[in-house]
């Protein structure tokens, strides 16, 4: 983010900070490889307004998961956060706190739900024992109350609570594990919840019901949610705000309905066109050209989308566009906004 745009928005930030559950600035993450560092996340600013659902879309390897790991300051090797700040509720900077304080924020204030295909639970401990471990780690005095609350949440999620608490991870189905994961993220009353591809490996009906539960709980507890996925459908359905992520940068952001109804960035446009829809003219669907970003894309100089862009010009190859406001809070990073695509 350049100086000018920071100055432009400086005043509004002061007001917004109070309303932002998370306010991340200038996040940079690099991955060390034998051939040199690859910038996996570059100069990303992202705000999660309190009580809202934000969707982050990106293809595999776009760095979207790295971004939320960076927000939690939990990037794993060979990744490294090189700069940035993450204000939590307008105060504590996650990236500067002592590791003990960070630990206490993780889990207690920020919940995290993993991909359905990942096993986020210790295979050798019963679910109930793991809840107790979690409670002890965050100095919960009344562990019995904690278990009762966990049971309540599990019942809410449509599970047989007593059975689940006495189970090992391998005794649960994919959909059940995912619900248990949601319970873990909420059992300590976290206000902020990150979901990383949390419905990806689930069946259609399971996914729909998990999304429904997330939506209900969000409304009820006024949660702040960031939902990361490659599936534009899920994000479009769930989120109020949307961030389009491409090769480590945000290329477009705004209100979901607005971005989907009138996308400005050629990638967003292409992506929306490239998904088969259940409504409208199916023959209008058109594949997106080129291939997904790889490590070479991250290293190129100009616009990251240059290779695949139908409306590129020579200047796009040499310099990279910044994220600029086009319409209220709808921002896009493209020199050619408004240009007709000839495709």
């Amino acid at each position, binding site marked *: 983010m350049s100086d000018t745009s920071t100055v432009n928005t400086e005043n509004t930030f002061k007001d917004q900070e109070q309303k932002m559950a998370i306010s991340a600035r200038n996040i940079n993450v690099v991955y060390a490889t034998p051939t040199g560092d690859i910038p996996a996340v570059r100069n990303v600013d992202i705000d999660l307004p309190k009580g809202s659902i934000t969707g982050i879309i990106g293809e595999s390897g776009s760095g979207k998961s790295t971004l939320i790991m960076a927000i939690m300051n939990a990037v794993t090797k060979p990744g490294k956060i090189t700069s940035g700040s993450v204000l939590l509720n307008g105060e504590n900077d996650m990236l500067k706190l002592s590791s003990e304080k960070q630990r206490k924020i993780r889990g207690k204030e920020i919940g995290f739900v993993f991909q359905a295909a990942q096993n986020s639970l210790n295979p050798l401990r019963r679910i109930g024992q793991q809840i107790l471990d979690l409670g002890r780690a965050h100095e919960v005095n009344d562990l019995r109350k904690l278990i009762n609350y966990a049971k309540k949440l599990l019942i809410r999620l449509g599970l047989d609570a007593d059975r689940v608490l006495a189970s090992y991870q391998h005794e649960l189905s994919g959909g059940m594990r995912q619900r248990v994961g949601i319970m873990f993220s909420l059992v300590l009353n976290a206000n902020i919840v990150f979901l990383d591809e949390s419905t990806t490996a689930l069946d259609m*009906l399971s996914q*729909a*019901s998990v999304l429904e539960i997330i939506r209900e709980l969000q409304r009820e507890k006024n949660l702040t949610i960031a939902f990361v996925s490659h599936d534009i459908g899920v994000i479009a359905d769930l989120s109020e705000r949307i961030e389009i992520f491409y090769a480590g940068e945000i290329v477009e952001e705004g209100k979901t309905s607005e971005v989907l109804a009138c996308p400005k960035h050629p990638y967003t446009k292409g992506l929306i066109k490239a998904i*088969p*829809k259940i409504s*409208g003219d199916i023959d209008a669907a058109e594949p997106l050209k080129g291939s*997904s970003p790889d490590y070479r894309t991250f290293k190129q100089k100009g616009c990251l989308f240059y290779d695949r862009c139908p409306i590129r010009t020579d200047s796009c190859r040499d310099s990279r566009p910044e994220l600029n406001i086009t319409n209220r809070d709808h921002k896009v990073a493209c020199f050619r906004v408004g240009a007709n695509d000839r495709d």
Partner: protein
Amino acid sequence: MIEIKNLQKFFQIKAKFSNHKTVHAVRNVNLTIPSGGALCLIGESGCGKTTIGRMLCGMENPSSGSIIIDGQDISKLKRGARAKLLQKVQLIHQDPYQALNPTHTIEQMMKATLKKMAKQKKKDADWIRQRMDELLKLVGLDPETILFKYPHMLSGGQRQRVIIARALTVEPEMLIADEVVSMIDVSLRLGILKLLRYLRERHNISILFITHDIASARYLGNDTELYVVYKGMVIERGRTELVIRRPQHPYTQALLSAMPILKGIEKPGKDRFVITSQFRQSEEEPHGCLFADRCPFKQSICDEKRPELIHSDDAYHACFFPKVRQVAAESI
């Protein structure tokens, strides 16, 4: 033309020192795919749709029923003739990362089968090279850059194209595409669907499309027939567009309701509903409707008798209380 008649499949789940369990994976399925036609099986994972595909290409033996390819019942053929006939049906796997041998270059893979074909057709090495080139171009790959690559150097989309090209080397009449796009990046999925559609339209190759995503089934062409499968049974069938707009079975409606709504482009259908109960492989075979335990509209008879697939309104459904509900999203 490929026909399936009364196809059934039971799986024995073996337990060493306790009773064997039997799972009825495919129940009395009938279907016909004319040459150059397309048929789509829709359902959740574990519903038996993959098993149908695997039986059709000979990877699995049916428990009963018959599979008829070009008028010949494959179960009545001798081993050699059967294998030859089954080559006309090629399976494209869901996972392009596993379907290519990591130790072979693309050229080695293509040659393995093309050499066999060349022997059958009494052609020479030039023919092999020419054919290899032709097929890779057909699937949208550049032979010169791709032939010497190993699979790990390719993206998911490119791999899936290589797999399709390799399947085409044996000149099949039908491709079974089992969740072919589910592991490919979103922006590249439509490219693969477009390729399948092209093969169908231009090269008269019929497609059996197996998926959980109804929207991608639409893309294959508007004469595609859609079969909705639940616990191994076809519970609704009809032309794709018709089933989406006028679904009669509650399960089909639940599936359509579960499709996410693209805010700003679409609005939810007015009868949309979400089922929150979990899918369970029931321990005992129910007497009644297979969907009864999850059906929000069930009545007492649904637990007692099982509805059969019956014809109504240009489509078929297996429900005692069919009712058209507008559950699919609509454009704004």
